[in-house]
């Protein structure tokens, strides 16, 4: 008796099960930071009302933050920000991605003069471009200094300091 040929759906189900996210090359992530204390919009409104605020003030605060590059929604704006190829942003400020590629790791380099506490915390950390994009690139509103940020992401090898070479006279 000949074997029953699997249906297209059965074949598709098997392959779908085998497709692992790590092997997926085209993937868009809409992601922001998630903590145990994350509040939904409704919960935030309720908590502000309990604290004595008015609905008008709460609405003003939320909309002002969302539409004027505030900190509360900076990660949301990063999550939905327009992309070029795949999930990598064409960030003109950095300028290294086109030269060194997205597989290179990048070090957050702060100026260390009047640097804000957020950037001080990031200074020296090395991550992939995708990871930095998820956390928040410089000048995207993810840090206290927002658009005034002077930090740059440089390829991690790039930032190593060359030892001083003294030559005999």
């Amino acid at each position, binding site marked *: 008796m000949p074997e029953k040929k699997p249906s297209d759906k059965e074949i598709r189900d098997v392959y779908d099960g085998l497709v692992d996210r790590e092997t997926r090359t*085209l993937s868009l992530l809409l992601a922001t930071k998630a903590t145990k*204390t994350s509040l939904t919009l409704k919960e935030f409104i309720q908590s502000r009302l309990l604290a004595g605020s008015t*609905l008008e003030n709460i609405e003003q605060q*939320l909309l002002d933050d969302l539409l004027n590059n505030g900190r*509360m929604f900076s990660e949301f704006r990063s999550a*939905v920000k327009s*992309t070029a190829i795949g999930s990598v942003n064409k960030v003109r400020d950095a300028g290294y991605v086109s030269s060194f590629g997205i597989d290179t790791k990048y070090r957050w380099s702060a100026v260390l003069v009047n640097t804000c506490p957020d950037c001080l915390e990031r200074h020296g950390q090395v991550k992939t471009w995708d990871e930095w994009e998820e956390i928040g690139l410089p000048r995207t509103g993810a840090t206290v200094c927002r658009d005034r940020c002077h930090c740059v992401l440089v390829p991690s090898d790039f930032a190593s300091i060359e030892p001083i070479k003294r030559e005999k006279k």
Partner: protein
Amino acid sequence: MNLSLKVEGELLEPDFDLTDELEQIAERIVIPDIVAGMGSSTDISDLPYAPLASSTIKRKLKLGLNTSTLIATGQLISSLRHQVLGKNKVEVFLGGIRSSFHGEDVISNDALGDILQNQGVRTKSGKRYFEFFGKSKRSEDRAIKFLEEKIKEEIENARKETIR
């Protein structure tokens, strides 16, 4: 005093749980935007693709295929999916497998998308790339507008609750 300051600080700059909103944005804005671009033969920067070679169009017509740049059988455009990976984390991707026309090697839609967008398609005049998969400026603006409306909706719901 310290406790009240700490609580005030958390309320002023909370971490939001926007999982539901991100999922709706993926489903209602990002995916339809990619589909619209593929249907109108424009990339995610809203630039039109170079027209197909006349030989390609003739071959597509002969095989009864759609003559749009990135649409042949419609399998790629219908493979766009989204899934919630966790709190505040939603992924848009190309799912499923397909067989090339005439039953050639099976290929996943994701792999096909990678060829089109990243590796390039060989033509007589060199490689062509089709940046069809991504978040356009249009979908970014719509996503922000979506959250704006969501905020107003939640405020209105809270207003109705306080009236009761």
